Every structure is written in structure tokens, then in C-alpha cells.
């Protein structure tokens, strides 16, 4: 089985660029990833591409070939959809293809164009990640679903809106020097608490923004990297995916994310590492409560203790395990189909030392990426490690 290297990464700026087409966004990210890798586009054997709401945002299905063309790749292209985990599952498929020898060079990534829909339109588009019959028709929005989980968490384990606010404050702080981030400004707990409510107990600053953007990574086999003398020190050493019942009300726990527990367990075992080995993590904080559930599923916090991790400084830049040094979905932005791949980009840069926040984790050699779809009916976890050679 071949090892899998992250040979190159490419990210557009995340934010509001409503006039930019999906194809233009992905062309930028894909071309940047190929240039970063130093890989000839003729060597790319397939594009694995994540996108969630292209039909609603751009009236565009069948995006795989469109995006391959945009990057100038003459190779088969397939779109993956798992709501906000769309490009996370694309990365996982890429890792498997390289490992099993099917491919030596793959372009993997994703795009979402959202802000052209406006807030109401994007809210409606995001809601389709939930069960249409049993959740959406009852008026459950995407923030509403996480608010139900937050309220259930408070009732089961305790925690306060101030605890959650500390997560948003931390992630904004981390994004201050990330020029690709949607928000590069500091906020305080009071700002989060006083912000307009979206779906109580979650307010505007508990929520990730609506974002446009694209991300891409070039995955290559160890052999290809060696033969072509690529500078690709970071490998994907573990991959895992978990699933759960679609509707929140059908799940055993309303305040936990067992699909991510499963994904993490599989990814840790695959890489041969444990939560204690993790030096840095990028987790799916679409809402502040989502970071709490992620930390507990990943084994970085005990169940019921994740809510205070940011407030206690355990996950801040100078904490035991810095979480979301990119700014996370909260401050970096969340173009949903791009998010999973963007986490791999950010982690690879953090580990290889060319991320604006690399100094915070200068000795790090193991990173974790956690990408979730819907109310975590889909979860994908990847382990990235720095290789000796």
C-alpha cells in the first residue's frame, strides 16, 4: 500500500464575492494547488470534487467535468456530495485511490458559491442538508438544528453562552493574520453575547458566515513524490468516515456526534496514533457548539468538558492542542463544499511551516482534520503527519 502525500495546496480567499462563478473560484484554487505542488497538469489522473448547493446557487449540476476543464485537466472528474462534508469525503476517496495503487496523482477539492443567494436563500439552501419531511417542514433551519443540540448539551452537561462565545473569540483571534480568512478582526465575549439571535441560544457570532470560496489539494503517492523529487513532507496517514441517522430526533443522543466518534476511531487506528499524539486540529465549527461536539468526538476532551476548553485556554493558540488556527469555519469562512479540502490545506501548511500561524505549533508533527455534514449525519476525519523523508 502506497503512502499518500499532500504535494500542493491551493485556496481562494474566503468571503463575499457573489459575482464570481464557481468555475472561476475552483480554477484559482486548482491552479494554485498544482503550482504549489510543482506537478504537471498532464500527470493528474482524476479530479475528485466536492460541492453541495450548485444546483440552487448556480443552476449547475454535473460540476465534475466543468471544474476539471476550468483547471485545464483532461481526466475523469466526479462530484462528491455530503452536505458540508462534501470535499472531506472527496479527500477520503482520493486517499483510498492512491493507497490502492489506482492513481499516483489526483486533484481533490471543492467549491461553494453562496453569497449570491442572499441570507434567506442561503439559509434555505443549507436547510436541505436536513430531513425535508420531518425537520425542514417544521421550520428547522441549519442554525436551528445546532441550537437544538446546544440547548440539549446545556441541559445534559451544563455550559453557558459565555463558554460558547469564548470559542468564537478564539477563532477570530486565530484568523487575524490569515489573509485568506473572511474575518480578520478581533471580537470579545460581550460582542458575541450581545449580537442578534439567529436561533436561540445561538446568535450571529456563534455562527459561521455565508461564504464563497474554493480549496484544492494535490495528492500523490510516495513513489511519485520520490521519483519527481517533490517537496512534500506532509502525508495523510489516517482516514475515517462515520454516519448517523439523518434526523436529529431519531438519534440516541441529542448532544453528541457519534458519527464523528466512529470517523475518529477509524482514522486514529488507520494512522496508528492516539488523541494524545495530536499537536494541532482543524475542526468543523459551523457553530460554536459544533466545535464542542467535535472536540469530544475526537477524544481531545472528555464528554461534557469540551464546552469550557476555549474559555480555559486548552484550545487557544498557546494551549495544549491549538484548535482552528486557521480561524475555523467561524472566522475563516465556510463555503461548504470547499471546507473539508480547505482544512487539509490549512493543516498541511501549519505542519510544513508556511502558514501564518505555523510558529504557534513549530514542533508539531501530527494534525487532525474533522469535517461534518448536516447535524453530523456524515463525518470525515483525517490524520496528517510530517514524514522523515
Amino acid at each position: 500500500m502506497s503512502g499518500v502525500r499532500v504535494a500542493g495546496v491551493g485556496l481562494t480567499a474566503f468571503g463575499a464575492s457573489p459575482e464570481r462563478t464557481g468555475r472561476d473560484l475552483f480554477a484559482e484554487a486548482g491552479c494554485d494547488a498544482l503550482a504549489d505542488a510543482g506537478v504537471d497538469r498532464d500527470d493528474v489522473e482524476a479530479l475528485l470534487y466536492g460541492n453541495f448547493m450548485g444546483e440552487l446557487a448556480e443552476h449547475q449540476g454535473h460540476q465534475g467535468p466543468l471544474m476539471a476543464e476550468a483547471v485545464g485537466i483532461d481526466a475523469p472528474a466526479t462530484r462528491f456530495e455530503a452536505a458540508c462534508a462534501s470535499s472531506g469525503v472527496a479527500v477520503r476517496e482520493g486517499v483510498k485511490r492512491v493507497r490502492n495503487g489506482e492513481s499516483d496523482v489526483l486533484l481533490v477539492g471543492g467549491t461553494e458559491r453562496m453569497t449570491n443567494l442572499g441570507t434567506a436563500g442561503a439559509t434555505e439552501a443549507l436547510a436541505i442538508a436536513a430531513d425535508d419531511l420531518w425537520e425542514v417542514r417544521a421550520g428547522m433551519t441549519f442554525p436551528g438544528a445546532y441550537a437544538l443540540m446546544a440547548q440539549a448539551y446545556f441541559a445534559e452537561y451544563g455550559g453557558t453562552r459565555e463558554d460558547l462565545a469564548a470559542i468564537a473569540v478564539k477563532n477570530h483571534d486565530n484568523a487575524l493574520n490569515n489573509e485568506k480568512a473572511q474575518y480578520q478582526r478581533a471580537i470579545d465575549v460581550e460582542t458575541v453575547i450581545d449580537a442578534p439571535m439567529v436561533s436561540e441560544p445561538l446568535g450571529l457570532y456563534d455562527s459561521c458566515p455565508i461564504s464563497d470560496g474554493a480549496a484544492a489539494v494535490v495528492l500523490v503517492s510516495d513513489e511519485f513524490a520520490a521519483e519527481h523529487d517533490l517537496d512534500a513532507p506532509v502525508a495523510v496517514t489516517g482516514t475515517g468516515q462515520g454516519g448517523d441517522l439523518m434526523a436529529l430526533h431519531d438519534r440516541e443522543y441529542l448532544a453528541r456526534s457519534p458519527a464523528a466518534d466512529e470517523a475518529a476511531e477509524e482514522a486514529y487506528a488507520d494512522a496508528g496514533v492516539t488523541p494524545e499524539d495530536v499537536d494541532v486540529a482543524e475542526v468543523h465549527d459551523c457553530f460554536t457548539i459544533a466545535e464542542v461536539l467535535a472536540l469530544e468526538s475526537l477524544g481531545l476532551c472528555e464528554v461534557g468538558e469540551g464546552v469550557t476548553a476555549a474559555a480555559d485556554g486548552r484550545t487557544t493558540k498557546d494551549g495544549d492542542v491549538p484548535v482552528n488556527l486557521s480561524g475555523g469555519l467561524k472566522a475563516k469562512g465556510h463555503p461548504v463544499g470547499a471546507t473539508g479540502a480547505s482544512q487539509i490545506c490549512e493543516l498541511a501548511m501549519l505542519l510544513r511551516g508556511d502558514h501564518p500561524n505555523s510558529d504557534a505549533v513549530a514542533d508539531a508533527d501530527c494534525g487532525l482534520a474533522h469535517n461534518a455534514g448536516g447535524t453530523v449525519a456524515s463525518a470525515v476525519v483525517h490524520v496528517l503527519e510530517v514524514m522523515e523523508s
Partner: protein
Amino acid sequence: MSDEDVADAGYDEWIDAVSEGEGYFLSCENDHGSLPPRRVCPHCGSLDIEETPLPDTGEVETFTITHVATPNFADDTPYAVGIARFGDVRVTGQLRDVAVEEVEVGIQVAIDVAETETTGDDLVVFRPQ
């Protein structure tokens, strides 16, 4: 959004039954509850699932007050969405006959069907007992 003239078989009959006070859920031999349309118990894979009367009273296990809605609920805000347990099954619906700020985890509710303000579409509602 489906064409309003075309039914969603299984779901529409359930809505009609609840609005007539004859709500039901699907129950397998292991006492797992679920909602139609289904052919398989989502909890254990049993193919032997039967319509079973919903208990008259449920308990709200979590809720949220939504201020930013999709266009279909734009005129309904603010509204409270809750998940209530009725014996072996949970259901998601909106709280009615109670001020949104009065909603709490643990309140006892009955299930019913009402119409949304914005579109007049049917939706599941919970009324405090």
C-alpha cells in the same frame, strides 16, 4: 420543494391522522420507534414494523427559538422548534399556545397539525398540556 399537488405517500397520511387525533408511529419488535414512510426499522434493521398509536402526551427534550428563517417561514418568526419524546419515538415540531419565551425543556405537550403563517402549509405542532 415538491409540487404541492403531488402527495408524499406515507407522510401525508401521517399528517392527516395526527390532525384527526389519531397519530401513530412505526414500532418494531424491539420497541424502537420511527416515523413513516419506512420499510425498515432504522435502529435495528427489523422488517417487521407496525403502526402503533402515539401516546397522548410527550415531553420536550430540547428547543430553539428561531429568529432567522427560510423564506417559507419568514412571517412566522420568532417561533419555537422543539424535539418532543412520545414514548418510543421523538418528533420535531413547533410549539403553539405558549409564548416562545415560556418554552422550557421538560414541558408536557400534545401533538397536533397546524398551518404556517407564511405559506399556509401544514406543519407538526406541540401544544402544552
